[in-house]
C-alpha cells in the first residue's frame, strides 16, 4: 500500500527511463547484428540460441517461479513442431493437411498447450525428484511413440520440407528475416515471462513455490496455479518448437529424444534459473560450444571426434564455479563491486 501512496506524490518516470544502460546496449547490438556478422552466425548460432533459449525459458519459468523442474518442455516444443508439420505442409503429402498459416499456427500452439497441461496435471501432485521422474518418463514415452507411430507422426523418418509460410512477400527462412523473427519471438516470450512473474498470478505462483500449505490456507488453489503455470510455459515452448521445425525444415523423433531433453535442462541450469535472461545466456554458451568445439580441438592439433569432452568440461566448469549458473557469477560480481564501493568508511554503500 505504501508504494501506491508514494506514487501519487512523486512523478512516475517514463517507462523507458527505467530501463538501464546495459539493456540499451544489448538491444542495439541485437538489432544491428545483421550488419556485422555473417549469415551463418545469424541463422545458425543466434537463431538456434533464441529457439533453445525460449524452450529453456519455459523450463526456467516452471522451475524458478513454480519450483517444478519439468523435463517435458522439449517434448511440448516438439509437439508444436509436429503439429505444424501435420496441419501445415511438408514433404509427406499423405499426412500433412496443408491448412493455411493463420489456422495451423494457432492449432499447433493450442494442441501443444493442451499436451503440456495434461502432463502438468499429472505431474503437479508430485514434488521434487518425482516431478523430474514423471516428466522424464512421459518425455521418453513421447519419443518412442513418435518413433513407432506411422499414421500420425510418420515414425522414424518424421517430416521433412517443413518451411515457414511466405508472408508479406518475405522468405522467412532466409538468414536475416529468420533472425528477426526468432529475435522478436524471444523478446515477446521474455517480456511475457517478466510480466507474468510480477502479475498477481505470478506472485501467487511464487508463494505456492515457497509455502504451498500457507497459500492453501489463504484460500489459493495450489493445484490450479501449478497447472496454469504448465499451460503458460507450454505456449512458450510451443513457439520455440515451431521456430525449431522451421529452422531445420524437418522434424523427427530425435528432435525430442532423451539427449535433447537433457540438453534443455543443462541450458537452463548453466544459464541460471533465477531470472528469465538466464536460459538465453545458457543457450548461447551451449550453441557456441556445440558449434565450435571441434574447431577448437583441431586448432590445438587434437582429434575432432573428442568434441563432446570439451562441451562437458565447459559445463562442468560453469557449474563447479557457480552452482546457480552464469547468473550467479554475475550476481556475486555485482555484490562484490557494491561492497568495495566505499573503501574509506569500509561500509557497504
Amino acid at each position, binding site marked *: 500500500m505504501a508504494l501506491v501512496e508514494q506514487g501519487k506524490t512523486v512523478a512516475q518516470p517514463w517507462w523507458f527511463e527505467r530501463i538501464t*544502460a*546495459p539493456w540499451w*546496449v544489448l538491444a542495439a*547490438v541485437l538489432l544491428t*547484428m545483421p550488419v*556485422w*556478422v*555473417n*549469415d*551463418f*552466425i545469424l*541463422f*545458425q548460432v543466434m537463431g*538456434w540460441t533464441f529457439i533453445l533459449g525460449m524452450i529453456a525459458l519455459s523450463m526456467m519459468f516452471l522451475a524458478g517461479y513454480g519450483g517444478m523442474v519439468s523435463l517435458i518442455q522439449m517434448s511440448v516444443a516438439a509437439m508444436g513442431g509436429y503439429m505444424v508439420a501435420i496441419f501445415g505442409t511438408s*514433404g509427406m503429402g499423405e499426412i500433412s493437411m496443408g491448412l493455411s498459416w493463420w489456422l495451423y499456427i494457432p492449432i499447433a500452439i493450442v494442441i501443444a498447450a493442451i499436451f503440456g497441461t495434461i502432463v502438468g496435471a499429472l505431474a503437479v501432485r508430485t514434488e521434487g525428484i518425482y516431478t523430474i521422474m514423471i516428466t522424464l518418463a512421459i518425455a521418453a514415452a513421447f519419443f*518412442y511413440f513418435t*518413433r*513407432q507411430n506411422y499414421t500420425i507422426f510418420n*515414425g*522414424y*523418418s*518424421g517430416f*521433412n*520440407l517443413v518451411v515457414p509460410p511466405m508472408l508479406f512477400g518475405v522468405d522467412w527462412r532466409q538468414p536475416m528475416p529468420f533472425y528477426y523473427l526468432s529475435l522478436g519471438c524471444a523478446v515477446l516470450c521474455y517480456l511475457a515471462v517478466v510480466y507474468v512473474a510480477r502479475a498477481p498470478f505470478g506472485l501467487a505462483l511464487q508463494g505456492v513455490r515457497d509455502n504451498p500449505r500457507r497459500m492453501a490456507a489463504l484460500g489459493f488453489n495450489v493445484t490450479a496455479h501449478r497447472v496454469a503455470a504448465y499451460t503458460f510455459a507450454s505456449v512458450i515452448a510451443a513457439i520455440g518448437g515451431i521456430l525449431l521445425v522451421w529452422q*531445420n*525444415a*524437418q*522434424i*523427427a523423433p*530425435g*528432435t525430442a*529424444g532423451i*539427449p535433447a531433453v537433457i540438453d534443455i535442462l543443462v541450458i537452463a541450469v548453466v544459464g541460471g534459473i533465477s531470472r528469465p535472461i538466464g536460459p538465453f545466456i545458457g543457450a548461447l554458451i551451449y550453441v557456441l560450444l556445440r*558449434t565450435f568445439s*571441434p574447431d577448437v580441438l*583441431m586448432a590445438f592439433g587434437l582429434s*575432432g*571426434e573428442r*568434441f*563432446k569432452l570439451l562441451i562437458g568440461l565447459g559445463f562442468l566448469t560453469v557449474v563447479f564455479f557457480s552452482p546457480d549458473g552464469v547468473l550467479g557469477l554475475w550476481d556475486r560480481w555485482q555484490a562484490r563491486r557494491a561492497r568495495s564501493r566505499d573503501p574509506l568508511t569500509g561500509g557497504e554503500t
Partner: protein
Amino acid sequence: MKKALIASVSVGALLLPAAAMAQDDTVKLGILVALEGAFAEGGADGVRNVELAIQQAGGMAGGKKIETVVAPTDTTPDTTVRQARKLIEQDGVDIILGPLSGSEGIAMRDYAKTIPDKTVINGISGALETTWVDPAENFFRFNLDGAQWGAGLGTYVVKEKGWNRVATVAADYSFGYTNFLGFAVDFCRAGGEIVERFWVPLGSSDFGGVIAALPDDVDAIYLGVGGTDAINFLNQYNQAGAETNLIGGTIMADQTVLTSRGRAKDALIGTPTSGALAEDNPDPAWREYVAAYQEAFPEGERFPSPSLFGVGYYVAALAAIDALNEIDGDLSGGQAKFREALADDPLDTPLGPVSLNENRQATGTVFINEVQDDGQGGLKNVMVGKAENVNQTLGMTVEEFTAMGLPSRDTPDCAALASGG
C-alpha cells in the same frame, strides 16, 4: 557504459566471418560423419578412410592441395543439417562427403537443393528415397542403397539352398523396410513365398512373442535386425529351440554380432547374408585396398579390415579426387564441370566398377556371404557369390518399380511379383 560498448564491438569483430573462402590453390572437402551414438566407431573409420584416400593421392587433386574439415553429427537429421550448414557457410568447403545414415541422407538431399553451387557426395547412407524420390541435382551416391544390398540373396537361397517358404522378422523402420524389400523382390521373383511378416521395434529386447508366433512349416526365417537387437533375438531364439535355417539382412551378421560373447550366435552358422562388401573378396583391387588400410594405421587405431562405413567414405573420397583430376581442379561455374566428371564414366573402386544412373545413384556389385566357423571358436563371413550390376530398380523397369510402391510393412506384394515375372 563506454567499456561495455567497446567490449561489445570487439566481440562483434571476433564473430566476423573467421574462415575465409578457400583459396585458389586449395580445394576444401567437408567430411560430414557420425561421431556420436551407435555409429561412432564406424564414423571414425569413415574419417580414417578419407585420410587414406587423400594420402594415396599425395594430398593433391587436380593440381590443388586438399584440405579437410570434419563435421561431427549424432545421426539425427537435425544435427546433420546444422553441421552441413556450418561446413558450407562457416568453413567454406567446396564438396561435402557424407552423411552416414539413412534419415540423415534424406535430410541432406533436401539441404543440397538449397546449395546448388556446391556438391554433396554421399558417405554410406542407404535410404532408397534419397536418390529415388525427388533427387537433388548435386547429390551423388557411389554406394548402393539398402534395397540393392538385399538383392541377389533371394535368388541364392532359392537356387542354391532350395528354401522356398520363409517367414520374416525385420526392424520396424525405414532401413528395415528397404533392406527387406531388396531381398523380397529378388526372392519372390525367383519363386519364393513369404508366409508371414513380423516387424519388431528398433531397440526392443523381448522377442518372445514373435518367436512363439513364428510358423513351423517354413524353410527358413529372414532376420532383418542388427546390433544388440540381433544378439537378443538369437539368444531367445536359441532358448526356444532354434530349429529352422536363418537368412540374414545386411546388418545381421556384421562384426558386432559375430564377435559377441556367448554361444547364441552359433545359431548363425550357415546363414547367408548379402551386403556391400566381402572381407575375403579375392579381387586384387580389394586386396590392395585392405593392405593399404592396414599399413596406413597402427593396429590399435583401426579395425582389422575396413568397415562398411569406412569403405563407403573411401569410395566417396576416391570419386571426388578422380573427378577433380579429370577437370584439373576447375570448380568454376557452380561446379558444373566437376559434376559432369563425377557422373560420366564408371569409377574403379575396391568393390569393383561403379557407374551412376540418371538419379546419380550407383549401380554396382552385391556380395553374398555365409557365416562359418573359423576353427578357433569364432565366426567369420565367407564370400559365396556376388551379384554384379545391381541397379537402383533391381532389374525392373522404372514403371514396374514405381508401381510396386515405396518400402513399407506391406510393400512389396510377394504374390504380385511372383506372377508378374
